[in-house]
């Protein structure tokens, strides 16, 4: 179970109190009624689903109720930082070293396939 730091409560709390809310930093277009089909598809349907550091939204739904942003390494499941909604995307330190330490499926299952 993940341990998540709520930037509003300023406490580490169990994953049980939170709900994941999708990729972060996808702003709803201000003139959404006028945008092209392609722009709408990009905004609403398409997500990056990166391996490694991803920026995502969480909500402290069973706590303060606030949505906030998090940078999480999807390989290690480590939260690199969390920050309040509305702040620009926060840079995170080089996580290459972190990733290297982590056992991936390929490393675990051997190379015999």
């Amino acid at each position: 179970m993940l341990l998540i730091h709520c930037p509003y409560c300023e406490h580490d709390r169990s994953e049980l109190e939170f709900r994941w809310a999708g990729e972060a930093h996808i702003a709803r277009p201000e003139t959404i009624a006028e945008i092209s089909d392609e722009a709408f598809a990009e905004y609403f349907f398409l997500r990056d689903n990166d391996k490694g550091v991803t920026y995502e939204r969480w909500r402290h739904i069973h706590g303060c109720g606030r949505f906030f942003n998090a940078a999480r390494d999807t390989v290690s499941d480590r939260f690199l930082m969390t920050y309040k909604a509305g702040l620009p995307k926060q840079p995170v330190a080089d996580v290459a070293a972190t990733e290297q330490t982590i056992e991936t499926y390929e490393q675990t299952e051997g190379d015999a396939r």
Partner: protein
Amino acid sequence: MSGSPNNLGAFRIKGAGRLTPARTARFTFDGKSYTAMEGDTVASALLAHGVHLVGRSFKYHRPRGILSAGPEEPNALLDVARDSARRQPNVRATVQEVFDGAKIASQNRWPSLAFDVGAVNNLLSPFFAAGFYYKTFMWPREAWSKLYEPIIRRAAGLGVAPKEEDPDHYANRFAHCDVLIAGAGVAGLTAALSAAATGAEVILVDEQPEVGGALHFDASTMIDGQNGYDWAQATAAKLAAMPNVRILTRTTVFGYYNHGFLGLAERVTDHLARPGRDLPRERLWQVRAKRVILATGAIERHMVFANNDRPGIMLASAARTFLNHHGVTVGRKVGVYTAHDSAYEAAFDLKRAGVTIAAIVDSRAKPGEAVVAEAKRLGIEVLTGHAVLDTSGRLRISSMKVARIGSTDSRKIAVDALIVSAGWTPSVHLFSQSRGKLRYDEAQQRFLPDIYAQDCVSVGACNGTDEIAALIDEAAAAGGGTVAIGGESRFAWTGGMIGAAEGAGPDTTVKAFVDFQHDVTAKDIRLAVREGMHSIEHIKRFTTNGMASDQGKLSNMHGLAIAAEMLDRPLPTVGLTTFRAPYTPVTYGTLVSHSRGDLFDPARQTPMHALQAAAGAAFEDVGNWKRAWYFPRRGEDMAVAVNRECRTVREVAGVFDASTLGKIEVVGPDAAKFLNLLYTNAWDTLKPGKSRYGIMTREDGFVYDDGVVGRLAEDRFHVTTTTGGAPRVLHHMEDYLQTEFPDLKVWLTSTTEQWAVIAVQGPKAREIIAPLVEGLDLSNEAFPHMSVAECTVMGVPARLFRMSFTGELGFEVNVPADYGAAVWTAIRERTEALGGCLYGTEAMHVLRAEKGYIIVGQDTDGTVTPDDAGLGWAVSKKKTDFVGIRGLKRPDLMRDGRKQLVGLLTNRPSDVLEEGAQIVADPNQPKPMTMLGHVTSAYWSENCGRSIAMALVAGGRARIGQTLYVPMQDRTIAVEVTDTVFFDKEGGRIHG
């Protein structure tokens, strides 16, 4: 074999062990009565009475004995009962402590353990090679579930689960600590002393009843000049007295998850003869540790040779535990077969206790000099460079066949027990679960922790630290403090050998067991490789090696070595199967804890629930809610009751509990602006005191939720949602408010449970509530349809809506939940006095369908636009923005021929369609037919005197008047497409 109450067993050694003879416990095994000593495990108690045969193997039904003295036990799985309900199958005899009155039985045998009919499988074993089931029972397919599987499951199996409900209760606790230490042997205790000295909050966990770990058997270790086991107990007492230390024994760290989260199972009462009723049987600990120290030790491996599974053959460390801890010898004339020095220590301890050691057979040419010298001093014959090629004995080993390696010249040595050791496997299970990466230690042929993924450190035998001095230093350093402990031991946790021993190599056909619990032999693993399995993950699944409840604690390394040899590849490239939680089996009771029965998935009840139950309501589940479904009177079935309720509402009036509808209070200067963005409708034009039906779409333009919204003041709206949609609608609103429109001054509050909602619907609705309502003119002129007002009802502050989900004159009375029952009772009494009745959700469904009112989630399915549902009028054409405005303009949502909601009338009025049934234009077209849509709602309408239905049909509104067909399994039903209003098409009644 059964003894008098004072007979503690013929195999007890006087003066040996740490148990107290004064405290005894009686138990039965397969109906025979035995006496044990307090502190005995089931295994040690049976061995004390000379009982080795305790089970039959999984597949071949071979006689099996006790192999180990710990949680790795694959054979001695027994059924342990207090009474018929408190019975647990597959209990490891080596872990279960004996308690007075225990009823213990062997498993997987019929009619008896000594004579088991299933043992014929052993003779048929050439047919039961690995992969046999996969290949043999392929077809006919139907026979699998009816014939093959039941028979295979009965023949090849473990214990039988109890059918009665578990009468015990289980508890659940959360804990936080600075350091959690798994394992309380020398390393764990040292680390705990060190960490505790720094003031850190420490939790020290061990699965055994007492601390000490390997000191239970290793009598050669001295710490600070004291016997190791005694030092361990004294140290535990010292630690327990410290306020910052918690010691949990009989507790297994079964899972190591993300971010320092660990699952612990504490066995609270399984060892007690008469547990207090208030005690939970087991307790689940969910611990969040800042740091974890793994001191989980190592597990001894067996030797893989022909017929290595007879009762009486066991691990050397197990024999030593039974002797040094329980005071029990495993035989009178014991053989030793080893590839590691540690088995010698077991032989020495047995010899000193007066047991004959037949011979020490060592596959190595050069064992350690010290042990050879000691063996010589004790007069034990040592055969170096020799192997045990085979064993004899039907229900217990009687002899071993020994030969020099490479020679066929063998000699038979009579034994009644054979203790074996191939060396030690570090317990890296928890380290692997934490996603740490292992490295292969070529010299010692073992996997060791390498790269850590969490704040965690391994110390001692599980880290490949073999000598006691280094082990203590490492553990002390890991604790972060300083401790000065001096230890000495003849014991080292080195690796030893892995793979098949002499006589069980690739050119042989003998049964040399690798995995005892699943009856996997060295031959099976080689067969898997020959059949093309080249990854250990495939070999594991083909042979089921390591897939039993012991999770391959003994078999993984042997299996891997045999596969690597066969593949002629370096062992690490064949791969190591992933260790997963739980480390040992955990009962469902522990995991489920209090969440069972009524607490498994708690039901939500409205304030009027009890009154409706008393009125005879049948309830249905809607989300987590219990809703009154219908109110049958004496002699009525559901259909009759629902028909009466539907008729009564339209003729007189009915009372309905609408409390479960979601309610959200939307407040603030920008409340109307916010609702304009969240709903398709326009809200700024709605005047205070009025309400409106609203549709909410998602950004993609599809209907998400609906409900009536009342405006109480310029800055205050009372929003209702569907019953099931309330939480997600609030989440959706909060999402937009907080992240997309954060500048709007709006506050959202869930008020679903604050209000009891009583709907009164029907021509006499006004007459019913008028005397109860204070301060409000209910006339059509003053309070027309879709009005809302704050008033008092029976003196209680209320919100009164004039609205209707039936098409009748209707009101919804909202009063604070605590007053719901009282107001309900008064309204019900007036209603019934005037000839009305209570009605439930089924009548509500029928009545709304008669009027063509949709239910989101029934008549829509997440691909339906407001226009598809016939609600295009609710989408504002003037607004420049709302959630869904762009999605609705997508080409596919605007094209012709989309499925639209229409009415269907069956040609035969008595035919009621099935919801979900498919609709076609031509029932005679070839299959697969072109399907035009499906029936979403279908009912018998008492008020229309016929069946009615709604359906989503491609280009539906253009088909009104056409005949379509609904093919069913036994017939085809012709239907006429209509609009969706079946009753009171003019809609006059609502304004009555």
